[in-house]
């Protein structure tokens, strides 16, 4: 693989902040998804009755919970896109600008 970029001097502090912020957001959101999903699976494995609890005549808790998981998976990607498009991309531009100045 070639490394073609011109070897610019980078504002290390600014860049470091960007990388830390990116993983803070990414890992937090990934952790939320994993806790919710594996939590759901473990409830299925250990306490099925909980999800079979009736809300209404026949409806069980499991159905809204399942649909909620699907919608959550989508919303949480939306949260990331919103953060990345505003905060992250702006920070990237700042670092790039600082590289051009030097």
């Amino acid at each position, binding site marked *: 693989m070639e490394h073609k970029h011109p070897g610019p001097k980078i504002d290390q502090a600014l860049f470091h902040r960007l990388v830390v912020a990116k993983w803070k957001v990414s890992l937090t959101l*990934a952790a939320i998804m994993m806790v919710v999903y594996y939590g759901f699976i473990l409830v*299925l494995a250990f306490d099925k009755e909980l*999800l*079979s609890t009736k809300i209404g005549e*026949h409806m069980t808790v499991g159905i809204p919970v399942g649909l909620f998981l699907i*919608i959550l998976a989508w919303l949480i*990607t939306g949260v*990331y896109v919103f953060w990345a498009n505003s905060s992250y991309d702006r920070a990237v531009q700042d670092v790039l600008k600082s590289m051009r100045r030097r």
Partner: protein
Amino acid sequence: MDPNFVSTIGQPNATSIIFFFVFITATLFITYWAAKKSRSPSQFYAAGRSVTGLQNGLALSGDYMSAASFLGIAGLVSLKGYDGLIYSIGFLVGWPIIMFLIAEPLRNLGKFTFADVVAYRLKQKPIRIAASLGSLMTVAFYLIAQMVGSGSLVMMIFGIPYEYAIVAVGLVMITYVLFGGMLATTWVQIIKAVLLLSGATVMVVFVLVHFGFSYGELFKQAAVKYGDAVLQPGGLVSNPWDAVSLGMALMFGTAGLPHILMRFYTVPDAKTARTSVFYATGFIGYFYILTFTIGFGAMVIVGQDVISGMDKGGNMAALLLAEATGGTMFLGFIAAVAFATILAVVAGLTLAGASTLSHDLYVNVFCTDGATEEQEVKVAKRATLALGVLAIVLGLAFKGQNVAFMVGLAFAIAASANFPALLLSILWRNFSTVGATASIYTGTILAVGLIVISPTIWMDVLHNPTAIFPLKNPAIISMTGAFIAGYLGSVLRPDPDASKKYEDQKIRNYLGVGAE
């Protein structure tokens, strides 16, 4: 429903034949148009990086929503009720993981395959050989499952012999990929995704009309007819280790499927890559909510005995429902959509396999003194032809075999061989060449080895009384093993040059500087 209802499934249906030819004609026109633009490797593998976020989101969901998940999950819901939803959730939760952990680095660091990212600062040859093993195994098992499934499906829908169905799927698919490359494949995926999503939406509207637009009424009638159990979790999740292991395979396997990963190179930049995952997750999630409704609709309107009478696994549930609610016209449309779905997924898999053979193995292992772009495309096209023929041969060879485990195996290998190495190469400065190869080989060998001695093959296929390995899915062991092997290999055989290049990699990874 009408007690005199007799399904016409299995007989040639005029509407489906017409829709089918319209689809084939339209997509072949696109292929003809794309063929003129598929001369350079970047055009052939990555559609010239010109795909927009919405287009790639549709194409990603087109690659992911296979006929198996449309017909299979609707069928599972129609026969088992709630348990079908558990599967859908598992298939969806990998997408946020792709978004948070790998989508942007993949786009910024790679060129055509995910091995580009793993090999970015490591030694090319050993990494490319190992990574292509992981890729080709994943693609092969997924492809066999799709081909065998499609043969039986087309046979049941159109009433043509299995062999003809396999050869037809193979030839049309080869035409798309061989002449139109990624651009034609992308448009086939987009058209298929739109057809599938709109067809399923119309079917759900028909179901809801039947129940006065009330989900409460739908669930109530299901419970009255088949007992409250259909609205409760049943026997799908019993052993917690098995459940967590399957969950890991689905969640991280999605983030290691080569045909999904290569789609990220078709967009111009990381920002578009990220937008496309958002669209894809939305479309796929919406689709699973539709299949859940379709499954319950089929359960009540068609009835479980009719569904299981036609196919034990319930695969015909969605088609029977289409016929019961919309007549033979609508059945014809949905059948044609199911066929388009098969073609699109098989085309995506073949292109991923061909790019591994030509870009990873030919260009970076066998022809290191420099292959020209023309040579690379030529090899990619030959690889496409070879893989297409191989897909047909495998489809014929596995006729009548129970290949349901192969999708699970493909996900387990993807989660164990591909995902750990990819993640470590992005995140860990001291990841070394030995660590990466150890991780990929350990993941592949453990995933394949354990599944052979698991109940899935040892008991169900080889008919032994007990299994040596107790879990149905090996991911919990094989994926953990791949991470441990990656760590140990890197600590025992460090790669100081690679660690030094990590700063360069970071700049390109996070800022997109120098990304192609």
